[in-house]
């Protein structure tokens, strides 16, 4: 479970990025996080995997509190989360298998375990035949599938996706979204930041909209002040 309690985040130079946000994401939920650029979506996501800590308030993720977590606690938390970005963030000189296995390598998993797990997730994301390819040999959609495979290989309880379809064409977007739905159907929570209103309209998932660092709409709480249809 992920819970934000009266969370604000401000930076000395750019001012307030997130202001007084309280939010809860339950196990197995699919949540769209939307809003204009600079609305605070990415900052909110970064606070989930604790790359950023709130200036005030508390973020609690699977029992880890942003107030008390040490660096090792954050590292352990991230092993329970999957994180996906718009720009894929794959290592260019490593094959797709090695990129996916990298997430297991760095947490000290034995080689005997890595091979099996990598093969399983590559099959899950539809890249079983592309394991030996280098990222540059794949299309954008395939690269994002590889990034999702890397995020999934540790069996995370939640997948944090920051604009995962932002660099993709419509067809690849549909493919990636379908993949995320399937992952969610297996019980993994998904929090996906997106600008794609069409995608949001076509799917009946919880939608949280942000503007100027605040939550202005949450379909799970229609009574929220300022609520409007996104």
């Amino acid at each position: 479970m992920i819970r934000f309690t009266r969370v604000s985040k401000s930076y000395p130079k750019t001012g307030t990025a997130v202001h007084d946000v309280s939010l809860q994401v339950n196990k197995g939920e699919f949540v769209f996080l939307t809003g204009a650029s600079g609305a605070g979506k990415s900052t909110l996501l970064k606070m989930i995997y604790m790359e950023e800590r709130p200036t005030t308030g508390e973020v609690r993720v699977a029992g880890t509190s942003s107030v008390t977590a040490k660096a090792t606690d954050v590292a352990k938390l991230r092993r329970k989360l999957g994180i996906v970005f718009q720009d894929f963030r794959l290592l260019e000189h490593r094959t797709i298998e090695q990129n996916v296995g990298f997430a297991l390598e760095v947490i000290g998993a034995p080689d005997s375990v890595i091979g099996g797990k990598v093969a399983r997730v590559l099959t899950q994301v539809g890249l079983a035949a592309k394991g030996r390819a280098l990222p540059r040999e794949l299309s954008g959609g395939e690269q994002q599938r590889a990034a999702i495979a890397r995020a999934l290989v540790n069996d995370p309880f939640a997948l944090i996706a920051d604009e995962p379809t932002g660099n993709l064409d419509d067809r690849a977007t549909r493919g990636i979204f379908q993949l995320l739905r399937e992952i969610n159907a297996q019980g993994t929570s998904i929090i996906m930041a997106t600008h794609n209103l069409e995608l949001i309209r076509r799917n009946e998932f919880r939608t949280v909209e942000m503007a100027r660092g605040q939550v202005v709409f949450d379909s799970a709480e229609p009574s929220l002040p300022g609520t409007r249809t996104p």
Partner: protein
Amino acid sequence: MSRAFRDVLDDVRRTPLLSALSVTTIAFSLFALGLFGLVALNIRQALEKLEDRVEIRAFVAAGTAPEDVGQAASDVASFPEVQSARIVTQEMALKRAQSELGEFRDVFEGAVLPGSIDVQLKPGQRDPATVKRVAERMKTFSFVDDVRYGEEWIEKLYRLRNIAGISGLALGLAFAIVSVIIIGATIRMAVLARSKEISIMRLVGATDSYIRRPFLLEGFAKGVMGGLLALVLTWIAQTLINRYVIETIFFTPRVALLGLLFGALIGLLGSAISVGRHLRRV
């Protein structure tokens, strides 16, 4: 650790030029340190040779019974600071003067020189204060006319030794700091070349110590390789100096090994600083 080792090899394979540049840079900074060390070692050796010549000479009054002089010499020899006490009779003193000042041999014809007790001090006991203390004790023998030990010369020698020691330490420290900075900069290049990898490592839950490991190993290996190369260069330089300039001594195997360890240590330190700074920033 095997993964860290594999990472280092991968890194060297991917960026051979950068790795070679790092090792060469480290080697040249350690070479500068090695040359300085060689100079310091030889100055120290020369000063030690001079120190061996520190001697206290207590002149014995004419007519003193040889038994008294013998007894006094054995008393002096038992002083904790004293290495040896030798009796020089009047005849021996004359012969010595004639052989040391051969050109003025004739001047000594028929001369009478006083006998003496010549005292050598133990190494480490040849500082001006100790020499003076022993000399003062020797003056207390009733038959001792005068005690000479080249007070001014010893003080100059010690001042020179202290200056050499302090400037050696300061310059050595400065070279070591420069080496650490250079090694830090070369490792920093390696860190920056892998910054994307480091950020992904962090995102997927690698601890900072896991991220640091290959860089520390790399710094250590580069320090050792640079140290080895520097040692070879220093040896070549010393051989050339010996052949064309002046006879010098080289480091003992133990000191050479210490130099290598020092290279490894500054490699580690440079890496630790660079990676630490990077991890704090990202």
